[in-house]
């Protein structure tokens, strides 16, 4: 077949595509499948064309198109768009930066975070006199207050907070009584300018603050009114310092995914965060470590060299803590001979005077590491590099564990960074995957990481995972092999690997089109993007993800989340998806606003009929015509619904979308989050109730569940 002939054929098929797309797009997909049967090559007839290519690319390599994105990419040219996305540093992202300014704690080093927002154990240590108070006056005030609140909660036998949530110093319940003069004092506060207001609160003795807490809760919104983000977070740290860190981390992750112009960077950041999974509830310090992990370890290497990323994760406090390597001690090391407890604990022991203080030090010493921990070594090979059945033995695991002894955390309670502790390192040569690693301290670890990063087994394992995420639940082996070769040739350059995938016919095959079911994260973020929502507080979206079984940083096993449809399509999740869609459509998610009337006007002017309105919404949300069934159901509902019904609100009540819960699925954490959700102001009613209902139904439809 000559090239001219192919061209004509392609044009003809494209024409058929356009016509059929309007009539019955899903039928065409079925047709495409039939054509694929028995073919090994990928001729033009099985390849996506025109706008379908753009939509496909945006659905795979971004968190879904916003209204207007398809047109913008068409203007720019698809390949040019992708190449630019591979260089996020060249993209203007100032709108995102402006939004992220609301979360100033994100910019602090792990050490500063730990100083500014003390964890529960740190406050206990301070209360027990094991740690001196800081010298900075604002911080000193906060520490004095939270330490006092801790002491009070102990005296009054307030039940211990749940695990993984060990501080909550200022009791947040509003069933407390006003102390004498509390109303007047809070009114006086409200009369002050924001900076003076904060200063007055910091200057107020903790006893008095405790007496005012009910009133302060009532006037929470007014108290923070006009404060800078830093001032607001300083104030919030009086109530629960750790939750400032947790909330900023979770909020910023969603804000980036929704608003960033550098979408390939964001999608790849999430890919690696999931690949090198960390569970946020591992311990008290994890959220602090995760802030640095996302910012300094994962994001800078998301489109870089795999080996750099692997080394950065190996040395990160988050990974060392999550997979316990920081506690691993060589059985024949100097530290093992000395009993394990570090100098830090010894120094604390000297300061312990009261029985409480001695008990805390005792507990720390009792938890001191006693030997080799193999967790990191095993997951490094099984999950991070070679893959399950990657050709290593239990003996290799033990040997690799020995190699990484001494890779630990400096002053873990205070947010210190990586430390190689020679005293913990196992002496002697090690034998890893048949290769002798000579005794060389920290360098042994780099040698092993290099060996693993450059292994063909690793290339295959990583590339298969990429293909599952971006192409299909069952990616063709030829594609995986081609990507793996590119991985090896480029020494693990992720840009090259992604370019190989981009230029492969398998990526653009019609059988790949809309073949992936959205994970909860992709569903929620793509819905927010399609509706061009304005997110003032992402807490309800964070809660929705939890409800859908995919909490941010919430995957407990080191495997990370899976990216196959079978892991996410379930009965209870579908009800939650539909309710989320209806609530988002109806502008009923507090702090997450959308206005369909404005989007419709900006799109194509005033709609003349219900039918036109519905079709414009299809274009905005789906970027393609809805299936006949979906359209019929939406229209049927729109026609039979009264205005009053359409306007009735879908409350995102704490019952429908519960908040972040630390630990168990029922109990105190949930109540606290219910309070947090209640504190968010409700949105205005939708300006176009009918469009709201249509939009909600379209977002909840089968058409929007795939990408």
């Amino acid at each position, binding site marked *: 077949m000559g090239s001219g002939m192919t061209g004509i054929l392609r044009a003809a098929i494209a024409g058929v595509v356009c016509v059929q797309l309007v009539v019955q797009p899903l*039928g065409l997909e079925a047709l495409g499948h039939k054509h694929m049967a028995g073919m090994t090559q990928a001729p033009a007839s099985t390849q996506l064309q025109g706008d379908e290519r753009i939509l496909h690319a945006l659905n795979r390599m971004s968190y879904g198109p916003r209204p207007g994105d398809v047109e913008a990419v068409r203007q720019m040219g698809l390949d040019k768009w992708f190449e630019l996305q591979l260089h996020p540093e060249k993209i203007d992202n100032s709108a995102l930066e402006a939004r992220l300014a609301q979360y100033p704690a994100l910019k602090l080093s792990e050490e500063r975070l730990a100083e500014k927002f003390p964890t529960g154990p740190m406050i206990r240590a301070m209360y027990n006199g094991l740690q001196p108070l800081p010298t900075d006056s604002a911080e000193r005030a906060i520490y004095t207050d939270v330490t006092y609140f801790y002491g009070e909660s102990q005296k009054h*036998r307030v*039940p*211990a907070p*749940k*695990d993984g949530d060990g501080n909550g110093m200022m009791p947040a319940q509003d069933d407390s009584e006003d102390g004498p003069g509390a109303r007047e004092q809070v009114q006086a506060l409200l009369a002050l300018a924001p900076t003076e207001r904060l200063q007055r609160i910091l200057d107020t003795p903790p006893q008095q603050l405790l007496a005012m807490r009910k009133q302060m809760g009532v006037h929470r919104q007014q108290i923070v009114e006009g404060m800078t983000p830093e001032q607001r977070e300083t104030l919030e740290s009086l109530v629960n310092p750790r939750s400032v860190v947790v909330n900023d981390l979770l909020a910023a992750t969603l804000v980036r995914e929704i608003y960033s112009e550098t979408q390939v960077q964001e999608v790849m950041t999430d890919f690696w965060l999931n690949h090198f999974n960390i569970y946020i509830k591992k*311990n008290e310090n994890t959220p602090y470590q995760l802030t640095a992990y996302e910012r300094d370890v994962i994001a800078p290497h998301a489109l870089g060299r795999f080996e750099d990323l692997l080394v950065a994760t190996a040395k990160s406090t988050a990974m060392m803590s999550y997979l316990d390597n920081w506690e691993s001690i060589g059985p024949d090391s100097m530290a093992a001979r000395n009993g394990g407890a570090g100098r830090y604990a010894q120094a604390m022991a000297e300061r312990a005077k009261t029985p*409480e203080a*001695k*008990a*805390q030090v*005792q*507990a720390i010493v*009792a*938890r001191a590491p006693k030997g080799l921990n193999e967790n990191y070594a095993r997951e490094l090979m099984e999950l991070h590099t070679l893959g399950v059945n990657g050709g290593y033995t239990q003996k290799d695991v033990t040997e690799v564990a020995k190699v990484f002894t001494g890779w630990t955390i400096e002053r873990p309670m205070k947010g210190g960074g990586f430390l190689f502790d020679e005293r913990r390192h196992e002496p002697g040569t090690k034998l890893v995957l048949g290769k002798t690693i000579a005794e060389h301290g920290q360098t042994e670890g780099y040698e092993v990481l290099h060996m693993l990063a450059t292994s063909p087994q690793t290339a295959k394992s990583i590339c298969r995972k990429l293909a599952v995420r971006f192409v299909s639940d069952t990616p063709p082996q030829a594609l995986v092999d081609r990507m793996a070769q590119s991985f090896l040739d480029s020494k693990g350059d992720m840009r090259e690997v992604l370019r190989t995938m981009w230029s492969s016919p398998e990526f653009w095959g019609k059988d790949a089109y809309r073949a992936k*079911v959205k994970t909860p994260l992709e569903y929620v973020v793509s819905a927010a993007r399609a509706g061009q929502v304005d997110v003032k507080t992402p807490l309800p979206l964070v809660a929705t993800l*939890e*409800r859908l*079984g995919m*909490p941010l940083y919430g995957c*407990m*096993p*080191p495997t990370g989340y899976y990216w196959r449809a*079978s892991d996410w*399509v*379930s*009965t*209870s999740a*579908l*009800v939650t998806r*539909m*309710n989320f869609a*209806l609530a988002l459509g109806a502008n009923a998610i507090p702090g997450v606003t959308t206005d369909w009337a404005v989007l419709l006007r900006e799109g194509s002017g005033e709609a003349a009929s219900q039918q036109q309105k519905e079709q414009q919404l299809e274009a905005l949300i789906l970027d393609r015509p809805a*299936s006949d*069934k*979906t359209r019929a*159901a939406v229209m*049927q*509902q729109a026609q039979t*619904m009264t205005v009053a*019904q359409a306007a*009735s*609100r*879908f409350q995102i009540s704490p*019952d429908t979308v*519960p908040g972040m819960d630390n*630990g*168990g*699925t*029922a*109990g*105190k*954490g*949930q*109540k606290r989050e219910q309070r947090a959700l209640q504190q968010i102001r409700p949105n205005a009613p939708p300006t176009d109730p009918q469009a709201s*209902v249509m939009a909600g*139904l379209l977002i*909840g*439809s*089968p058409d929007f569940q795939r990408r």
Partner: protein
Amino acid sequence: MSGIRVTRRAFMRGGAMALVGTSAVPTFLQRAVLAEQTNAAATGRRLVVIFQRGAVDGLSMVVPYKESSYYQMRTSIAIQQQEVLELNGFFGLHPSLAAFKPLYDQGHLAIVHAAGSPSISRSHFDAQDFMESGTPDVKATTDGWLNRALQAEDLAAKRQHTAFRAMALGTQVPRTLQGTLPAIAVSSVADFAVGGKSKAAPGLNDAFEAMYDESSDSLLRGTGDETFEAVKMMKAANPAQYQPQNGAVYPTTAFGQSMKQIAQLLKANLGVEAAFTDIGGWDTHQNQGNTRGQLADRLKEFSDGIGAFWADMGQDAEHITLVTMSEFGRTARQNGTGGTDHGHANAMFVLGGHVKGGKVYGRWPGLAPEQLNEGRDLVVTTDFRAVLGEAAYRTLGARNLEVVFPGGQLQPQRFLNILPVG
């Protein structure tokens, strides 16, 4: 015994009809009834699992009051002999567990003491993970033991199961129930509906149902069918009208309400075979208290919730096995702040119509200093998997124990025989 079964089956049929109140029984209800009957023919029983998250102090729940070291090691938090609810001349219940006492005396409640995990981890995170996955010290397990137990339950019979077969009360499907078999999380029975409490909810539900019913997308259509069936079943169960029976009064706490909703869903014949919920607040490092205090309050809530559930289930309790578990026990010695730290072995409760109760199972390892694990806590003499394995085997009929607890090497002949054979 057979008389009860006949009565029960008759009740179920009547109950299912009564739910809809029309002559035509919809297919989803027929299916539920069918599932019920085949299950009744096989084992007829349901398993309820309660996780006490945060490591409850087993030595305060089931007190070894004859151990002198117990009182030596716990100068201010011990429960005195005259305060315990007498069990068997050696152990006594914490007075806050008063709701358990009659169940024990009637032979419905069994206790397994010194049970726990072979893993030596003292991390809540790891230990809960290992218990829920059912694979101690194996971090890479992705599914939970209860999901595998249902998979192992007579797969050859290919029974019809409803969407409620594996159910957790809460916002998320817990680790214990995660796996290839679909499990459902219900945070509030009343809110399990499309469109929530909106006036437009029925219409919206129908609109979505039409889209998914006729979707050309086979994957989504299948799940859509199940979803709308589940929503209908729940609606037919009419949660708003639910009144606990037999004078049962549930605590108004989250746990109490979870137990109430489990009872409601079990009674509604929705095809629930395994239900899970949890209760936190056990991590008593400071001011644990003794007969009064934070632990005593929590224990009261715990036992009152279970006691109310038992009373509420009435005759249906016959077919239920309820097991409680916690990730590890607490130190034998009290610490410097009137509390206890992370320990090892714990006590588990097993409650049910078929349970051979009124007995404390397991070998007691002793509390003398030389008898303690690492010199600080109760030694594990019964692997928690043996207790859960027996419950799965004899309640759910999960015959392949290697599927349920891989590497656990469980053998029916080595069960504690808390439940009868067959």
